[in-house]
């Protein structure tokens, strides 16, 4: 009986918390490409401080998030790792027309946890390692870029047997960070706060620019928090965070 009363109270408590929250602020659910995990977390925190709205983030490979959105996953904003998927969502009627814009340009880094191991592309040409980690090129733009770089350097065929694929750029990094792979192509943003290891920022001319587009989804059209986040994402505070994490910002929108 006591337990029953406790549960009852708990229910009312939970209900009142939900009530309170909705009275003051709204919640926006954002699907975020895995490579943008760290900056998005920082943004959500500052967004909350500034507007009072809650931004709830879900991370994953862009294609997987896209599939979930098409199957009516409860997201209002999609921060993709590429420009294609937001465009597709608009064409298919799942996103608000003309709402997509480039929020960041991704940078590819070849990184190893061993200090001094990676200096430039020579390490790829020498090939004195057993495993090279990349994101799955079938689903992650960073994986596509990694393959482009290796092809541009004429080392792809030689290295193919050493490639291991992470399901997302997050997992590709995890393989390198756990030292199961000696090195890997990862996102600059993933190592911004790291003091260890060694890396080579891949020159932009070796791969196609990775424009990352955001889009407002149909379900967010009338959501105050969603609209506020889009404004926030275009503002200078967000841009500084984006740059701080090693992304480039697109020229005048």
């Amino acid at each position, binding site marked *: 009986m006591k337990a029953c009363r406790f549960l009852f109270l708990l229910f009312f408590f939970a209900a009142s918390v939900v009530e309170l929250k909705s009275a003051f602020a709204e919640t926006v659910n954002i699907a975020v490409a895995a490579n943008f995990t760290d900056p998005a977390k920082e943004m959500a925190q500052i967004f909350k401080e500034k507007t009072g709205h809650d931004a709830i983030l879900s991370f994953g*490979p862009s294609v997987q998030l896209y599939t979930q959105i098409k199957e009516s996953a409860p997201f209002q904003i999609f921060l993709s790792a590429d420009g294609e998927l937001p465009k597709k969502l608009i064409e298919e009627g799942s996103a608000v027309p003309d709402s997509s814009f480039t929020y960041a340009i991704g940078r590819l880094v070849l990184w190893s946890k061993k200090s001094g191991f990676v200096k430039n592309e020579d390490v790829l040409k020498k090939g004195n390692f057993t*495993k090279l980690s990349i994101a799955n090129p079938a*689903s992650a733009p960073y994986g596509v870029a990694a393959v482009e770089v290796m092809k541009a350097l004429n080392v792809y065929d030689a290295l193919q047997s050493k490639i*291991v*694929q992470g399901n997302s750029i997050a*997992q590709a990094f995890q*393989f390198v960070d756990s*030292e*199961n792979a000696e090195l890997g192509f990862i996102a600059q943003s993933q190592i911004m706060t790291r003091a260890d290891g060694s890396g080579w920022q891949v020159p932009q001319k070796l791969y196609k620019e990775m424009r990352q587009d955001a889009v407002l989804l149909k379900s967010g059209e009338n959501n105050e928090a969603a609209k506020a986040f889009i404004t926030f994402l275009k503002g200078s505070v967000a841009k500084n965070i984006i740059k701080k994490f090693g992304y480039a910002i697109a020229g005048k929108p």
Partner: protein
Amino acid sequence: MMIQGLSNDILTSIFLSMALASATTLILLVLATPLAWWLAHSRARWKEAIAAVISIPLVLPPTVLGFYLLIALGPNGPGGMLASLWGARTLAFSFPGLLIGSVLYSMPFVVQPIRNAFEAVGERPLEVAATLRASPWRAFWTVAVPLASPGFLTGAILGFAHTVGEFGVVLMIGGNIPGQTKVLSIAVFDYVETSQWGTAHLLAGGMVVFSFCVIFSMMLIEKRLRQARL
């Protein structure tokens, strides 16, 4: 056209899943038999603690096991030391690595049915065999094992099927290498992710039929064995 689309990639994944499941089942039968015997007959107080440890993968999220394996198989863990014997750095991203993961992950599915079967046989038939001057070793092979055969069969089928159905652990330590670690479940995941739903449907449907056949045949076999004994 669809069949041509089935391509080597899929066939390789199917073959790999079957190879992994077969090898896992064989290893597990060898490991689980003495273990189950001990669990069934020991009077040690801490044996249930051991049984609990073996059963942990039943409730543990595969991601937890995958995370620990990623570290343990890596160059700084025991797996890396083992791998260095043949010049490799890590057991992750390799068939042996997946095998280790699968053995741990499917262990309870094999140990439990065999233990139950040994317990159901009980001490009595073995005592009778002993009075007929059978050595414990001979009694084990000629009395206990045949009587417990339904348990072995159930364990083997469950272990095999569960390994084919494994996903989370492989995703975390596999690295998606065709022919080495890209098993069937990962291939399905890949096809869904890349919007190749036609192929995904084909494979997923195949998995459903396969799973049904496994479970159904197990039920039939068990039923027949039970009737045969009565």
